[in-house]
């Protein structure tokens, strides 16, 4: 049994995403953990997944940290040549254009682009915006009600225009990724849903899904913590209404977890 089978089916709205998916948002809302989950889950669905690490802002806690596991899952990772080195330089992988084109032309392919935080991180998308806009694409604006500087829906909404300006892209969906890491409970999820619905309303952009992290016991990939088990049960039994609820694993971890 692995984590995927515990988490259950992924929402159909995620399976139906177009072949080019951009993930952006405020620093630390959980873009990378969401992108990793989406990459693993679409790969498990039989899709040929390319994950682009487009973070030119922060050299810590990025998709490239997961290179070996991604490769083992058959996912192609495109990261800056400087990733996982001590070079802190804003480099882009040369194969990104062709990966976007390939995702469009090849049946079953999907390209997920994990951008850096805020308008600064979104800037790197601008270079590819023309190509991205040439075909079907989704631009997911990830929000988290418990990030300190964007606790109010209006604060989260206010950041988007800056990111759209620098990326030359328009958000197509809001993704609710409200969590408190392994301290996520029902009240956190509930609050996140209300928050994200309000952000979506202000922006007039539809809410795609709500990600709910399920923490595993230390060192395990399949044994849920009692709190995570309880959280999953209350959502499964509809005690907690959650439209397009997406149970996700916590891949972005600390060395002692």
């Amino acid at each position: 049994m692995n984590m995927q089978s515990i988490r259950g089916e992924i929402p159909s709205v995620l399976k139906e995403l177009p072949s080019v998916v951009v993930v952006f948002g405020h620093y630390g809302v959980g873009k990378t953990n969401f992108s990793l989950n989406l990459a693993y889950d679409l790969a498990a669905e039989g899709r040929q997944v390319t994950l682009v690490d487009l973070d030119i802002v922060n050299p810590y806690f990025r998709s490239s940290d997961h290179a070996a596991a991604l490769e083992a899952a058959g996912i192609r990772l495109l990261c800056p040549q400087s990733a996982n080195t001590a070079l802190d330089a804003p480099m882009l992988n040369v194969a990104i254009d062709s990966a976007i084109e390939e995702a469009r032309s090849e049946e079953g392919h999907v390209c997920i682009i994990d951008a850096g935080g805020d308008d600064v991180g979104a800037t790197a998308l601008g270079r590819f915006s023309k190509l991205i806009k040439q075909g079907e694409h989704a631009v997911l604006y990830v929000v988290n009600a418990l990030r300190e500087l964007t606790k109010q829906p209006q604060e989260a909404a206010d950041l988007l225009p800056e990111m759209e300006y620098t990326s030359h892209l328009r958000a197509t969906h809001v993704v609710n990724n409200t969590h408190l890491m392994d301290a996520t409970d029902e009240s956190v999820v509930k609050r996140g849903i209300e928050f994200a619905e309000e952000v979506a309303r202000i922006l007039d952009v539809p809410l795609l899904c709500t990600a709910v992290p399920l923490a595993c016991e230390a060192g395990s990939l399949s044994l849920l913590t009692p709190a995570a088990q309880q959280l999953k049960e209350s959502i499964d039994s509809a005690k907690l209404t959650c439209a397009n609820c997406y149970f996700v694993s916590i891949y972005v971890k600390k060395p002692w977890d």
Partner: protein
Amino acid sequence: MGEKVLMKGNEALAAAAVRAGCRFYFGYPITPQTELAAYMSKIMPKVGGTFLQAESEISAINMLYGAAAAGARAMTSSSSPGVSLKGEGISYMAGADLPGVIVNVERGGPGLGSIQPSQQDYWQATRAMGHGDFFQIVYAPNTVQEMADMIFTAFEKADEYLTPVMILADGLLGQMMEPVELPDEIGELPEKPWATTGTKGKREHNIANSLYLQSNELEAKLLERAKRYEIILDKEQQSEGFMLDDAEIVLVAFGASSRIARSAVVKAREEGIKVGLLRPITLWPFPAKALEATLGTAKAYLSVEMNMGQMVDDVRLVVGKDVPVEHFGRTGGIIPTPDEVLEAIRSLNAKVGE
């Protein structure tokens, strides 16, 4: 205290500093502490404070000297190479008895080294931050919550003892996210009758100065300051013990490596090894009293650090020669894994266990 939010260590340091009454921040960007400066640049204009990106780290520390002399709660931050540049200014602050908070989010060294986390600046922070006979109080948080709480303590102790205070973190602590409850905004700030706020013709001049034209005056000042250091050594030691009651092997680790060491201790206990962890929270003053208290059961000590072996010197100073003291470390930006530390515990146990 408010509700829990998710923050990076760097952000929590900045947000808590503002709540502790810091209204002046001077800095210069460097990975892995840049989020602290970025946060300050956003928040300071909103609270009527000053964020100033200086032209260099040396300028920033001298601005801190100026703000501190004028009685403000002020802070600067950097990472290892940048902190080295601040050494001169910190010595001047110590020489002028000025309070201020300096944050070091350590990275690999020496030189430009690496942008990855390290604890290679222990000696610098606790022994050699600058020239002259001086110390600074050094706090070593190991959670984002502690980073927020310790900034309050740092400002308080700086004002109480009239000394620079350092928060010694590392790239991992600065960059990682954890739930945190930010402390409430501070009420009254302490009076600073010594501050250079203008005499208004009513009092003698207050002067912030570290130059003494008469050697005996300088010596007298140093002796007076040394008495303050004695009080700090006596009153301000802080540490946390974990499974120490019957510990035959005592790990000593601070900051990020204490989180790793703690995981390793839990695993080793499952194997029946009597091991515990002493975590220094203050690095200067080093928690000698708490370490001495472990001598009754300890057969060996293991100092776990992200460096080539620095704090291990302080452990040996306390433990002496009768009990073996070893060091386990990874360095240059490498973070040890709990399993590596566990292996070091096993082999030490094999050596000293009956």
